[in-house]
C-alpha cells in the first residue's frame, strides 16, 4: 500500500546544491523585496522549509536563524523578527518531516499552509505589538503564494537528485 505509486529512488543530495539553492533564494527574496508588493511570496522561507522537510539533518534551526538575521538587516525590520519566523518554520518542518512525504504533493500543500500562515502571523503580531503601522491586508496573500510555490520547489530542488544513476561514476575498473 505504501509504495502504490511509482516512486523514483532519489540520488543522495549534494551539500553544495543545498547551499546554492539557499543563496539563490536569498537573492531572489532580496530582489522581490525591492518590488514593494506585500503579496509576493517569501522564496527563502519556502526553501528553508523545503530543506527542513527533506534534509533536516543538514538544514537546521541555526541556518534558519542566520538567514533570518540577514533578511532582518537587509529589510531593516525589527532585528530577530524574520529569524524567529524562520526558526519556527524550520522546527515545524522537522516535527512533520517523517509524515509529510508519504502524501502526494497536493495534500502536502494543504498540510503546510497553516505553518506558512503561522510564521507570517508571528512577524505580523510582533510588529503590531511594538507599535508599527498596519501594512495592509494583501500581506495575508503571501503564505498562500508560498504554498503555491511548493510544487515548483519540489520540481526544481529535487531535480539534481532525480537524474539517472550513472554506473560509471564509482565502478571499479
Amino acid at each position, binding site marked *: 500500500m505504501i509504495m502504490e505509486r511509482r516512486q523514483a529512488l532519489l540520488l543522495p543530495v549534494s551539500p553544495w546544491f543545498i547551499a546554492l539553492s539557499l543563496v539563490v533564494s536569498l537573492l531572489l527574496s532580496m530582489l522581490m523585496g525591492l518590488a514593494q508588493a506585500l503579496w509576493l511570496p517569501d522564496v527563502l522561507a519556502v526553501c528553508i522549509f523545503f530543506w527542513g522537510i527533506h534534509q533536516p539533518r543538514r538544514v537546521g534551526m541555526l541556518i534558519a536563524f542566520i538567514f533570518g538575521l540577514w533578511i532582518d538587516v537587509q529589510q*531593516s525590520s525589527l*532585528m*530577530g523578527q524574520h529569524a524567529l519566523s524562520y526558526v519556527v518554520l524550520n522546527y515545524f518542518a522537522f516535527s512533520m518531516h517523517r509524515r509529510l512525504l508519504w502524501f502526494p504533493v497536493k495534500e502536502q500543500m494543504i498540510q503546510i499552509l497553516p505553518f506558512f500562515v503561522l510564521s507570517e502571523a508571528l512577524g505580523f503580531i510582533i510588529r503590531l505589538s*511594538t507599535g508599527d503601522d498596519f501594512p495592509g491586508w494583501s*500581506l495575508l496573500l503571501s503564505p498562500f503564494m508560498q504554498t503555491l510555490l511548493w510544487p515548483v520547489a519540489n520540481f526544481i530542488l529535487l531535480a539534481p537528485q532525480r537524474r539517472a544513476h550513472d554506473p560509471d561514476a564509482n565502478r571499479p575498473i
Partner: protein
Amino acid sequence: MAPASFDRSPPPFFRVGFAPLTKLIFFSALSLLLMFGDKQLQFTKPIRASLSTLILPVQWLVLQPGQVASAIGDYFQNLEQAQKNLQAVQLEALQQSTRSQQVEQLLIENQNLRQLLDLKPTFTTSSQVAEVLFDVTDPYNQRIVIDKGEVKNVALGSPVIDAGGVVGQVTRVYPFTAEVTLLTDRDQSIPVVNSRTGARNITRGDILAGLPLIELKFVPASADVKEGDLLTTSGIDGVYPAGLQVGRISHIERRVDISFARIHATPLAEIKGRHVLVLQPTGSTSAPNGKAP
C-alpha cells in the same frame, strides 16, 4: 569516520545533537532578546551596522537588474519626451527666476532688519546631494535608503529635502549608506508653522484611505485652518531649518464629539524622486534620539 572511534562513541547515525525543542526554545529566546534589544535598549546597533556593511556587496548585486532596466528605459526614451521635459524645466526656471532674483535683496534686507532689531542671525546650513538607492522592504515602516553614510559625514537626525520640500529625517546611519524615515511614517514628527496664520503645530505621518499623508496633531476643532494652507518647518526644534515646505492641508474633519479636529496634509516633496539633499541639523547638539522633539 575513523574505525578506531567506532567502539567508543555512538555511531553518527544516533548522534543528532540537541533535541529540536531545546533548539527552538534557545533560538526563540535569542530572537526575542534581539528584538527587545533593538526596540528598547539599542544594543543591536553595532551588530546591525557591521552586518549591513557585510551585506552591502550582495545588496549592490541585487540592485543591478533594476538599475540596468532603468538605464535601458532612459536610453530608449524618445527625443520628443526629452524635449518636452526640457521645455517644462525651462518654463519652471523662468517662472522662478523673478523670485530667485529678489531673494538676494530680501536676504540682505532681512539681515539688516534683524540687526536693527537685535535678533539672532539665521543660519545657513551645509548640504550634500545623495542618491536614493531603494525603498526599505519592511512593509511596516516608510523609509528609503540613500547612498551617503557615516563616511560622507551624514549625521544622525539630519533633515532630508528634495525639490518639493521636506522628505524626512536620517534615522539610521551605516558606514556607507543611511536610512531616511519619510515624513509620512507614523513615528516621524515635524514641528511646523501654518504660513497663513502663523500657528505652530506638530505633524505626524498617517495613512488615510491607503494614501500616505501627514496629520496635524492636537489642533482644536475651532482653530483657524483651511484647506490649501501651506505648512512650513518652524525651525524651533533645532533640527530643521525654518521655512522649508512640508505640506498643504488637504482634508479637514471637524466632529462634535471630539475636541480636536482631524486635519491631514499632503506632502509637497516628490518622495519617489531619484535624488535628495541631506542638510546638516541646525543645532547639532540636540535631538539625541535622531527624532524630532
